[in-house]
């Protein structure tokens, strides 16, 4: 019994805009996943690669002033992939070492791309695989969708709200660390005009994040909406990435063997469309301006468009279909 029982009282007040109600779904979803202590700890761990990238930013900027730092840069670009990427982008490694400020745009782009391509992509697969399967499947199991959709909310807005939960996580994993590194790079640089030569990098980071977020969210939501058991959705998610990568490696290797023409490190075969990981990597490389323009550029873009449309359509269709009596 409440201390002050006021009974039922009518409510009058200004309501929020009907077109913004999906934000409630998103904010509640984010609040809910953020309660997990393990997720917070995992996110902190996942920031370590960003700290390493930040270290290299600092070293690179210092190398412009102090040649002793250039040995570290040399060790970074001693890797096969870095050499291959530099070659495709038409940058000479020796030039980087001799005159770092002239190659700043390439080096910053490469470091951020590397961050996206490897640590953050793996982090994304892990975190989304642990979080996303629950987003819709739990609502299907507990019939929570009825509560959502009996309010002024359409199935499309519901899916959008759920997608925003994943967008938030991906932004925290990919875009936010990359942008912070970029800002830190600006401050670490001895040259105050560095902003004018690198102004496009934040935009590239945002586009690369979108490329990562839109199709992967579509896939994750589609899996989540196809089952009431989140573990099945999680299994399907991880299987997709593993099987896709293994298939790509097998086909690409077989292709090379048949052509007797080895695929150089960092290059992509046309079999990459079998692997979401390779396709996203290729597109991000293109966004960061590190890809040599050779054929089939439209295919990966069509791939993410198709995957996104199919993924969101499945999620929408499943939610709308559940309303049948």
């Amino acid at each position, binding site marked *: *019994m*409440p201390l002050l*029982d*006021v*009974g*039922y*009282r*009518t*409510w*009058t*007040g*200004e*309501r*929020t805009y*009907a077109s913004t*109600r999906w934000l*409630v*779904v998103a904010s*509640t979803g984010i609040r*809910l996943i953020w*309660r997990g202590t393990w997720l917070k700890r995992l996110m902190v761990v996942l920031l370590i690669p960003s700290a390493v990238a930040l270290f290299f930013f600092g070293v690179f900027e210092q190398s412009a002033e102090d040649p002793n730092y250039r040995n570290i840069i040399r060790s970074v670009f001693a890797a096969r992939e870095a050499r291959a990427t530099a070659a495709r982008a038409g940058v000479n490694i020796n030039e980087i070492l001799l005159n770092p400020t002239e190659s700043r745009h390439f080096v910053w782009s490469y470091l951020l791309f590397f961050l996206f391509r490897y640590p953050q992509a793996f982090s994304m697969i892990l975190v989304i695989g642990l979080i996303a399967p*629950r987003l819709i499947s*739990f*609502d299907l*199991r*507990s*019939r*929570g*969708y*009825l*509560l*959502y*959709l*009996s*309010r*002024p*909310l*359409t199935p499309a807005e519901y899916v959008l709200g759920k997608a925003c939960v994943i967008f938030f996580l991906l932004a925290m994993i990919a875009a936010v660390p990359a942008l912070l590194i970029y800002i830190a790079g600006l401050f670490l640089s001895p040259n105050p005009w560095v902003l004018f030569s690198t102004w496009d990098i934040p935009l590239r980071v945002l586009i690369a994040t979108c490329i990562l977020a839109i199709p992967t969210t579509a896939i994750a939501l589609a899996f989540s909406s196809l089952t009431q058991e989140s573990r099945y959705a999680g299994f399907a998610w991880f299987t997709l990435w593993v099987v896709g990568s293994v298939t790509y490696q097998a086909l690409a290797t077989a292709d090379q063997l048949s052509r007797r023409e080895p695929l150089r490190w960092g290059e992509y075969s046309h079999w990459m469309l079998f692997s979401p990981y390779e396709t996203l990597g290729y597109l991000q490389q293109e966004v960061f301006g590190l890809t040599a323009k050779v054929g089939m550029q439209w295919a990966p873009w069509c791939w993410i468009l198709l995957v996104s449309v199919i993924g969101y359509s499945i999620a929408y269709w499943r939610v709308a279909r559940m*309303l*049948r*009596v």
Partner: protein
Amino acid sequence: MLLACCDIRRFLDPENLIPIPRHPLGTSLGGRDGIGTKKFFGDKISSVHAKYNRIVLGAPQTHTFLTGLFILNRSEPVLEVHDVVKRYGNRDVLKGLSLAIPPGVTGLLGPNGSGKSTLIKSILGLLRINSGHGRVLSYNWPSECKAIREHIGYLPEDDCYLHGLQGIESIQMMARLSGLPRTEALRRAHEVADFCDIDQERYRNVETYSTGMRQKLKFAQALVHDPPLIILDEPTTGLDPSQRESFLDRIRMLAVEKGKSLIVSTHILHDVQRVCDHVVILVGGEVRMTESLERLQQPIEPGLHLRVEENLEGFENSLRRRGIAFERESDRELRVLGVGADQVRCLWQASEESAAPIQHLDAARNSLEDIFLNAIRS
């Protein structure tokens, strides 16, 4: 003058206006929630409120002290649909159904598969109908379903909850989805949780709730945005007898004191009898009967219904000797035909003579169960 700047007849049927005397101190207008007062005069209200501070947009009983221009007629249906057809494949679930639901509490009855849930979900716009049109709370239906959902509270039949949220959070979230600002939603959630008798359990995760608690929670979620029309699908399922009575009291209170309109879809006829003003019986996707409960229960021949404590046979013999016609209803209940003052006197005399104390005496009514069964069979 208050509404001189707008032509009322553009918005309202003149028959729905009840003129009331103008007061020299100012003008007020009022209307029961959900019949469109806010929608029609929405942009005028704030200025009028500032000028006169006398606007009342609330429960019907407040109209007794209104001193203004007019009120909206209470008899306008809150929900009116025509020729509704809903098909699943080749099967017609709703077959050209037409229905008008007046304000108050309406019981929606029907056997399983009669289309009750389909009708409710169609009204909410959760299901797309094949054809049909109508008006719900002054909004066009089905074209304005999203706006309609903003003003309807819905308690689903299904056991549904939002996984991972505390009770109070899930009420707050429903409030926010209906447009209440965050802080106001939390305040309102606590208020409604109190009203629905959800005590400290409100801080527990909803997946740990019992069926009865979930039912209360769904009721709170349906009420949190203060909707003028509340649709309750099997609301008393899983409640123990005392909680069920309290629940029904709340439903009745909302209708009588707060002017809410409620549609109660249930199989429990006792609940309908207890709280409803009107009854709609659906059979096979068609409206078989729609009538006020009072009129439905009126017997063709007036009579009295009584229950004696003991010795019913002696009581019956005594009535026969007095020439009073009656029918036995159970081992302690009788229906006496006729309601004259003489007959009532004779009943008390017969009771005294046969030592059969009368426990209960009131006007005889048709049983809702019989009405329901007859409607289905016909």
